[in-house]
């Protein structure tokens, strides 16, 4: 049975739509701008990251159109170089890193652990404004010329280019602070605000993964911060810390940069795994096969993820010994992902599997994660990386993880929790159509890029020899499908906000903890009574309790 005590009065009436909810509890723009409600902050992040995603997607489409022909197509080399830089910076710092933790983590993490807010609500609001400030500074840089360094900001190119690299660096630095603040908040929340009865081994797997993400955010982001500051100082003032002419070492920059940016990959994929763990349990109507293995593999990824940054430096001039050390350590991080994949699959065994849109995304996710993840292992196999490093193979690999992994999970989360967040359901038919479009378009876009990488086409190429032409055309065609898919989703979700069918508190009949409250949740999450947790999440073995019980009567704090 769900996390409410067995003593629910049978007469409890659960409304289909909670009229007085967090959305209309206080009215007016000002109440939104000054809100400390974690749910409203999640919704604000949903709006902001969607704008960022649209902008980044626009740049992606322009890049693909430019690559439609071997020579110049629609823009100059200078514009193209700015485009892929902005595409990378926006998608990573403004969308990928904040998206799932800041939208769904903010919204559901406190609800899942029975808290009425995150530990530091005002800090949480501050993170939104820091995000806006960072985006603003980066936008200033974009409008005043943009930067043409790629999102990796490799020195000495980034310190000698004539473009506006300093504002972009500062923007990314500020966005990092926003990420740190969120991470600190989540860790403190999980440590101190779990409701009575909710021990660590009863935490939903979503919470475990987000917690692991927060650890990486807190420990890795400061190193990126200082690295970007050093580049900015050198570009702006000529202090020469990475300048070879003054004895600086560009490879040191790469070490510092990837010490953040490799774990950052896990900042992006761990929340996706968080979502998938919830989705698979709900739609298979099963408890997670190997709860502890999945929970601890999240921490394992967070920990081992810090040991592998050097596999981005195999061809950079790093020592052979270091290449060996990083090569072997990189193999271990794949294991934790393998554990998760096997356990998710095994969860379906003897389940009761319902094929809904979130589950369609789960299927896509599973395939893409295995393929993308194993090509990552292939890339970490030292001698193979020599050929693939900085080619389209790498581009295809990380898009398989980022788009095929994170965005699939993001869309799964969006569909899965849409009824809880807004009280209305999306149209299932359109949901499946767009899911199929996106999965097909995704394959058509990125599988040719694997082959291009094998052929040897380096990344960040404005023009290319004619033998790369046919595969580039295929890739561009696929990206068009992808764009259509996203467009359809945006439209039907917006329509469903007003016209969708009322969802009720638990449309999926899930035993996840977030479904015990009303849809949309009240401003204080649970109404007058505090929830008490008895069972593990997704415990489907008890007799069906009928409609989801309202939170039970308050139990005095005891354990």
């Amino acid at each position, binding site marked *: 049975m769900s996390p409410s005590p067995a003593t629910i009065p049978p007469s409890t009436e659960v409304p289909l739509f909670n009229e007085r909810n967090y959305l209309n509890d206080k009215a007016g723009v000002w109440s939104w701008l000054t809100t400390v409600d974690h749910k409203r902050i999640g919704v604000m992040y949903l709006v902001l990251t969607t704008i960022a995603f649209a902008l980044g997607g626009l740049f992606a489409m322009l890049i693909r159109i430019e690559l439609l022909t071997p020579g110049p197509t629609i823009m100059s080399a200078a514009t193209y170089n700015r485009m892929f830089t902005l595409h990378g910076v926006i998608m990573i710092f403004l969308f990928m890193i904040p998206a799932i933790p800041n939208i769904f983590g903010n919204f559901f993490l406190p609800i899942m652990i029975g808290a009425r807010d995150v530990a530091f609500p005002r800090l949480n609001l501050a993170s939104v404004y820091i995000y806006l400030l960072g985006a603003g500074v980066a936008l200033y840089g974009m409008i005043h010329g943009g930067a043409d360094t790629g999102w990796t900001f490799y020195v*000495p190119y980034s310190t*000698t280019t004539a473009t506006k690299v300093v504002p972009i660096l500062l923007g990314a630095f500020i966005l990092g602070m926003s990420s740190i603040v969120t991470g600190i908040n989540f860790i403190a929340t999980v*440590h*101190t*605000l*779990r*409701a*009575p009865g*909710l*021990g*660590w081994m009863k935490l939903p797997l979503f919470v475990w993964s987000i917690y692991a993400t927060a*650890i990486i955010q807190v*420990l890795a982001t400061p*190193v990126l911060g200082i690295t970007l500051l050093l580049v900015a100082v050198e570009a702006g003032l*000529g202090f020469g810390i990475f*300048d*070879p*002419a*003054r*004895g*600086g*070492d560009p*490879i*040191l920059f790469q*070490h*510092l940069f990837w*010490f953040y940016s490799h774990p950052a990959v896990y900042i992006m994929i761990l929340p996706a795994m968080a979502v998938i763990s919830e989705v698979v349990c709900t739609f298979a109507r099963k408890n997670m096969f190997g709860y502890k293995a999945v929970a601890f593999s999240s921490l394992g990824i967070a920990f081992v993820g*810090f*040991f592998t940054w*050097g596999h981005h430096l195999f061809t950079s*001039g*790093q*020592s*052979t*010994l*270091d290449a060996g*050390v*990083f090569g072997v350590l990189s193999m271990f991080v794949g294991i934790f992902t393998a554990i998760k994949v096997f356990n998710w699959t095994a969860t379906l065994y003897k389940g009761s599997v319902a094929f809904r849109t979130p589950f369609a995304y789960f299927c896509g996710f599973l395939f893409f994660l295995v393929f993308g993840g194993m090509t990552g292992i292939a890339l970490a196999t030292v001698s193979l990386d020599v050929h693939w490093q900085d080619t389209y193979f790498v581009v295809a690999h990380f898009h398989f993880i980022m788009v095929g992994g994170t965005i699939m999970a993001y869309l799964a989360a969006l569909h899965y929790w849409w009824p809880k967040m807004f009280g209305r359901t999306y149209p299932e038919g359109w949901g499946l159509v767009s899911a199929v479009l996106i999965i097909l378009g995704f394959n058509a876009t990125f599988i040719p890029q694997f082959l291009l990488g094998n052929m040897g086409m380096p990344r960040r190429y404005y023009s290319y020899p004619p033998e790369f032409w046919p595969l580039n055309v295929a890739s561009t065609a696929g990206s068009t499908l992808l764009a259509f898919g996203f467009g359809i989703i945006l439209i039907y979700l917006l329509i469903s906000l007003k016209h969708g069918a009322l969802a009720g508190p638990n449309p999926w009949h899930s035993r996840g903890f977030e479904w015990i409250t009303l849809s949309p949740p009240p401003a204080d999450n649970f109404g007058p009574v505090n929830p008490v947790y008895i069972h593990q999440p997704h415990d489907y073995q008890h007799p069906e309790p009928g409609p989801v019980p309202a939170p039970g009567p308050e139990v005095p*704090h005891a*354990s």
Partner: protein
Amino acid sequence: MAMAHVPSAEEERASRRIPTSRYYIVWIALLALTAITILVARMHLGHGFGLVVALLIAITKGSLVALFFMHLWDHGGANRLVLVTSLFFLCLLLGITLLDNASRFPLTNPPNTETLRWSPPGPDILSPGVGAHGTSSRHEPPREHAPQEQQ
């Protein structure tokens, strides 16, 4: 971690009265260690040894501050773990990066005496002055260590 809402044993320990004399003792110890590290530095021990001693003293001083001024002695639990984890990852970053510098192809390290000896034989196409095309105008040519100038 104990149940979230119950004050843990550590917190109980933290709230009991700590005598102020403890702070003064730590303070005197810190001053004494500062004096010692300066004296040791004056003695000009061997190159590596002096560094090791100075760092050991600094680590001792740092631990005193963290344990007693920052109350990790009394609090502990998650807080200790946070500090230890951050220091662990810092050592990891420092260690593997230094390992790289120490073991890479020697000429891939920034110019040192070894690199200077390796100027290419034959005609010199490698000096920045010859093809001034790409030299960044904001930096002077790498004068300190341009290999060819050392021939």
